[in-house]
């Protein structure tokens, strides 16, 4: 690790140390190597030596690992940390860690795109989302974020470069569910969802899906 990376890593750890325990940042039993801007493409043990990339069985294998992706997401979150509360950052980190851990991750799934989490963060900022979604994946490179409000449900499939697919179900006045699905860019999402009163999903006082 060069001096710049070390300093950056130290700075990020310091920033997080007040709100996250070491365990919150570790994945698969190892603390992440925090590097800004670029994704870690190799597994690095405690002594800093290259130990190889975990082979993927997927025919659409990408050249980064769950751990590398987690590190990239944490870096993205740290760069936007001023926009999210400590609670939000902590819960997002824990849910992401759960999703990408060896305990839960299905190796036959394609990892979400490197910037999918950043797309989700941008959705949360633009829509002023206060509730933390349930995180998942469609197994084809997107990060799925789902919010429930009784029988009403919305899932945002966050992809690379601000691409978002949405699928929603909302009970209308007559008690019948209205459904919609489509693709758009993050910047268009508030306008697209306006007709469905999205605050019901995103801002009802609860932190959870």
């Amino acid at each position, binding site marked *: 690790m060069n001096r710049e990376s070390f300093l950056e890593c130290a700075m990020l750890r310091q920033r997080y140390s007040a709100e996250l325990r070491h365990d919150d940042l570790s994945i698969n039993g190892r603390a992440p190597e925090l590097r800004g801007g670029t994704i870690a493409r190799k597994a690095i043990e405690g002594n800093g030596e290259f130990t190889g990339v975990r082979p993927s069985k997927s025919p659409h294998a990408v050249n980064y690992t769950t751990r590398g992706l987690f590190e990239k997401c944490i870096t993205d979150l740290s760069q936007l940390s001023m926009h999210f509360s400590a609670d939000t950052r902590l819960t997002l980190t824990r849910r992401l860690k759960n999703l990408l851990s060896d*305990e839960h991750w299905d190796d*036959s799934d394609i990892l979400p795109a490197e910037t999918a989490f950043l797309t989700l963060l941008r959705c949360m900022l633009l829509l002023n989302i206060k509730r933390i979604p349930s995180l998942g994946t469609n197994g084809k490179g997107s990060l799925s974020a789902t919010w*429930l409000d009784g029988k009403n449900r919305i899932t945002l499939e966050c992809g690379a470069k601000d691409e978002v697919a949405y699928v929603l179900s909302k009970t209308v006045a007559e008690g019948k569910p209205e459904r919609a699905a489509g693709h758009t860019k993050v910047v268009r999402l508030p306008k697209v969802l306006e007709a469905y009163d999205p605050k019901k999903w995103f801002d009802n006082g609860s932190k959870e899906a």
Partner: protein
Amino acid sequence: MAPKKLDGDHRIVRQVPYSRWIRGDNNEYLGVLYSAFTLRETDSYLSVAWCEYFNLSAEEQARAAIFELRAARPDKKSTGYWIAKISSIEEVLSPHRIRALHEPVEGFNSHAALRRWPEDDELLATLAQEAEADFLLSGDLFG
């Protein structure tokens, strides 16, 4: 021999990895994502296990089907199994007139194929939300 068409009253099991189910505050199950039912690029049908293939009690049938399914496709403790009646699936997806066929493969005798499967996200979201189904966790079943 032509594959046997399965009765509407019979049940199928679909394997649902952790990343395809919706969780609440305490990691509890709240539902499944529609992407639990989307086809991979290489698939032309939805692959499931048929419970009534086994001549056992209803509970044991589901367990036996899950056992075969996890042997064919290894799971984790957090992997879920979505169990629904074929008629319930057919009802939600009625515009597509899906066909549930028993198509055993080597080592997976209860394997069934749900053919004419839709690729419409909105319709699959309806299935995820409205079909009556049970959900069992591998960790609860097998420890």
